[in-house]
């Protein structure tokens, strides 16, 4: 292990990124419900209020719309607010402020004002939480022109992407989705100091020549396991989208042109989900390379069920295996 690296889970790596951002830029401030004294319901902001003070790590009243709307005013007048929405299901009321204002402040003023805020939202299922605490809302955000939507797939990715989101030259509103299943899912080596992962750039997690699995967020560790299970049969390439919007089409298309077979995997509902966009782009720009129809393995088109049934809805390694067989066994 590199002596400057530490074993961190994603809670620790995000906490570490936020403390670096607070340290290096006095205009960064965090605000949200229970993020200060309590350190956040997932403990992501633990210790930050103690270290940076209640002016910079602010416990707000219980008002998601107000938190985002206020952050827009702050960002427009020169601060770098990092609002936290406690759970995915409570983020929907903030869509009005994000779509109508954050996303178009620059265009509406032809660049006179900009809105460099970073909204952090824990997303997804798999932790047996209450109702409205396990949704996968990523495409709502990714659909909005003017917003950037980022979703890390582990501790290292989370820190690098979050620090890039809060860098000086990043001037657009960013929705930073944190798959809560990954918060304490695993630890990995993460540099202690500053580093950035470019926003708008997908990552080839593993190279391969037979099949491209395109995925993101909490699905990536499952895809890795599946690829290992099939390692003796197929050479599988894994593409982690990382930035859902704007999408790095080139990395996706390069992979598809190489392998000719595509499986898209994520836990959100299928219809008009992220896979629809990826499949459409592939069919527009790389159809002639395809050796088999594109396969989507996703959550079902049902509202996220309660804890006892969530595993029926969230696709797992077996679902991926079936998808891999389907796309690899296709014969014309």
């Amino acid at each position, binding site marked *: 292990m590199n002596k400057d690296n530490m074993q961190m889970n994603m809670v620790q790596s995000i906490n570490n990124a936020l403390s670096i951002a607070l340290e290096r830029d006095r205009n960064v401030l965090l605000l949200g419900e229970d993020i200060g004294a309590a350190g956040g319901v997932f403990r992501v902001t633990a210790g930050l209020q103690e270290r940076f003070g209640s002016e910079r790590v602010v416990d707000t009243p219980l008002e998601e719309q107000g938190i985002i709307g206020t952050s827009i005013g702050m*960002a427009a*007048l020169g601060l770098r607010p990092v609002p936290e929405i406690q759970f995915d299901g409570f983020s929907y009321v903030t869509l009005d402020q994000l779509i109508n204002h954050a996303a178009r402040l620059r265009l509406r003023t032809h660049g006179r004002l900009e809105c460099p805020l970073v909204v952090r939202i824990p997303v997804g299922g798999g932790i047996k939480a209450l109702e409205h605490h396990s949704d996968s809302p990523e495409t709502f955000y990714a659909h909005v022109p003017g917003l950037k939507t980022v979703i890390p797939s582990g501790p290292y990715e989370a820190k690098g992407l979050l620090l890039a989101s809060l860098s000086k030259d990043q001037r657009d509103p960013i929705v930073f989705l944190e798959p809560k299943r990954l918060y304490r899912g695993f630890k990995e080596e993460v540099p202690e100091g500053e580093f950035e992962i470019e926003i708008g750039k997908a990552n080839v997690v593993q190279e391969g020549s037979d099949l491209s699995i395109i995925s993101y967020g909490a699905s990536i560790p499952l895809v890795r396991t599946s690829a290992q299970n099939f390692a003796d049969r197929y050479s599988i390439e894994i593409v982690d989208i990382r930035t859902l919007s704007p999408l790095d089409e080139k990395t996706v298309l390069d992979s598809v042109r190489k392998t000719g077979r595509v499986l898209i995997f994520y836990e959100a509902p299928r219809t008009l989900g992220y896979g629809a966009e990826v499949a459409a782009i592939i069919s527009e720009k790389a159809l002639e390379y395809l050796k088999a129809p594109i396969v989507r393995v996703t959550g079902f088109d049902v509202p996220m069920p309660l804890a006892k049934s969530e595993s029926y809805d969230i696709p797992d390694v077996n679902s991926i295996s079936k998808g891999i067989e389907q796309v690899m066994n296709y014969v014309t």
Partner: protein
Amino acid sequence: MERKSEDYHHDHSDENRKKGPPPKIVKKFEIDSIQILDDKGKTHDGATVPAISDESLKQAYEQMKFLRLFDTKAVSLQRQGRMGAYSEFKGQEAIQVGIAMAMKKEDWLFPTYRDSAAIIARGVPPEYLLRYWSGDEEGQNFPEGVNVFPIAIPVASQIPHAVGGAWALKYKGEDAISLVTIGDGGTSKADFYEGMNLAGVFNLPVVCIIQNNQYAISLPREYQTHTATLAQKGLAFGIEAMQVDGNDLLGVYFVLSRAVEKARRGDGPTLIEAITYRLGHHTTATGDEPYRSEAEIERWKHRDPLERLRMFLEQKGIWSQSYESDVDQQVKQRMDEAVRNFESFPKPRPEDMFRYTYSQEPPKLKSQEESLLGRQPEAQAAG
């Protein structure tokens, strides 16, 4: 046609009190209502008349005269197809000019779609507003140093922006405040409650003025909320709140300048309900107004803020017929020039919408831009 409001403001608390044990009163509230100039332009006996020089009073009157003409002209430009749908402010000039008078250059205004007058009074050249209302974003690329946020079209969404703006100003230690306006309808919205709640909790330098013009498009004020005043909603946030006659420039200036300076001192937010009336249409697109009577509009015309200020100036001996003719001449020239400037603006460029969506244009948008400009079909654009 006119509905009676008494039923909606009936207070049951006294009846209920008689039935139970004598309550301990925890807190009592009152709402003050301020008027300095009455309907005839006379100051109330004993009223504190704000110290405004004759010159400033005349400037305010001239500005209000100009804005009245601007509003009329904007409507006619829309009717002639030279401008898009436009939201009229006629009747609310005293509030909007009072706003600008109470603010300093470094303060920020967060306007709604009915605040073209306040925006111009803050120093945005009128041709910018014509440009915006004609459907061109460049109209909101206000000149550097004129601290006006873009117009909020979604009702009440500007409240949290103003609160966040005030928060940023306070955080950075700047000697500036934010001032936000809202209509009577907006006070029913979550953004109003959430924003003003934060303003109270964090004691932020923000002033919110409700322009209660009696209607939210068609819905009368008494159907908007069950409370007797809109001002009292401020009490729910622990914020000082009051009413003022919104057609009385001196009254508006008095309460606003006090609230603005209070915010600047660090003594927190204020909520002001200014009672006024929309003499024009909601917008040029809404047409007939079966929800209100001619008689009602006539009654409010007698409370016109321009005429009231004129009568006050006349009583002070600083208004004459020849002055009025000069002012008419001046404002017409200013308006003609604004229209000339507006009509000389180039058409919006198609590339602007792509270039201003993100700080750096992503490849996807570059390719879509190329396809619109006919340089490259989208289907063939590089991924």
